[in-house]
């Protein structure tokens, strides 16, 4: 990994700025994969539990200062051991976020697309299950509830254990 940027911040980020910074000065980037997670209007957990759809109005993101950064560093290092990466950027917002706001950005550059895609997906899966963030969703009627960890996220993370050799 040539560079690693980890930022936990309240303010919004710009996908273009991050991509531009990752491309600057470097002539061997062949592939740049990004993932942006956004606040969805529909609350899938309430959706599962009840027949009607429940809309959320905002999310509240909490983290454990110090531990979260450490978790993200470890996740990026693990990705770098599996694939040949150039630059990795992980940005996660905290605080109150409204519907359709950006929550998380993961950008990975590499010489080849397989590495960029795989590392980006890997980092997201591990961020979801291993990094100290917690999400509370607030509904339009001003009730809120803490989002529960999803089984599908845990399963996605476990799948990576099967493919550990460096590629």
């Amino acid at each position, binding site marked *: 990994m040539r560079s690693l940027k980890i930022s936990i911040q309240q303010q919004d980020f710009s996908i273009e700025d991050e991509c531009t910074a990752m491309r600057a000065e470097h002539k061997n980037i062949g592939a740049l994969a990004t993932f942006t997670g956004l606040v969805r209007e529909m609350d899938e957990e309430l959706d599962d539990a009840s027949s009607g759809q429940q809309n959320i109005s905002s999310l509240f993101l909490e983290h*454990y200062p110090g*531990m979260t950064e450490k978790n993200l560093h470890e996740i990026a290092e693990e990705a770098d051991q599996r694939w040949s990466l150039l630059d990795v950027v992980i940005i996660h917002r905290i605080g109150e976020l409204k519907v359709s706001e950006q929550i998380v950005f993961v950008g990975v550059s590499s010489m080849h697309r397989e590495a960029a895609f795989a590392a980006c997906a890997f980092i*997201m899966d591990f961020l*979801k299950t291993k990094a*100290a963030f917690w*999400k509370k969703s607030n509904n339009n009627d001003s009730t809120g509830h*803490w989002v529960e*960890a999803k089984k599908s996220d845990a399963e996605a993370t476990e799948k990576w254990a099967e493919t550990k050799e460096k590629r």
Partner: protein
Amino acid sequence: MATIHYFASVREKLGLSSEQLELPSKVDTVSALVDMLIEQHDKQDGNWEGVLKTSSVLVAVNQSIAKFSSPIKDTDDIAFFPPVTGG
């Protein structure tokens, strides 16, 4: 002094985000700390046992995930929280 943090639903249910405590020498594991916390706080509002003894509650010692059987010292940073849900 040890610093104890509570996050997310654990913090909300306990009504406390962190506290600093002197750990007696016999409180040398996370489990022993949990028992001490329950004993201290439940004198007043009686909610801590239900919250901290839930099977889903996780613990970190010095910002690394730990077990309830993990050893602790009086200078440690200890945190209790529910499963993470970022991203």
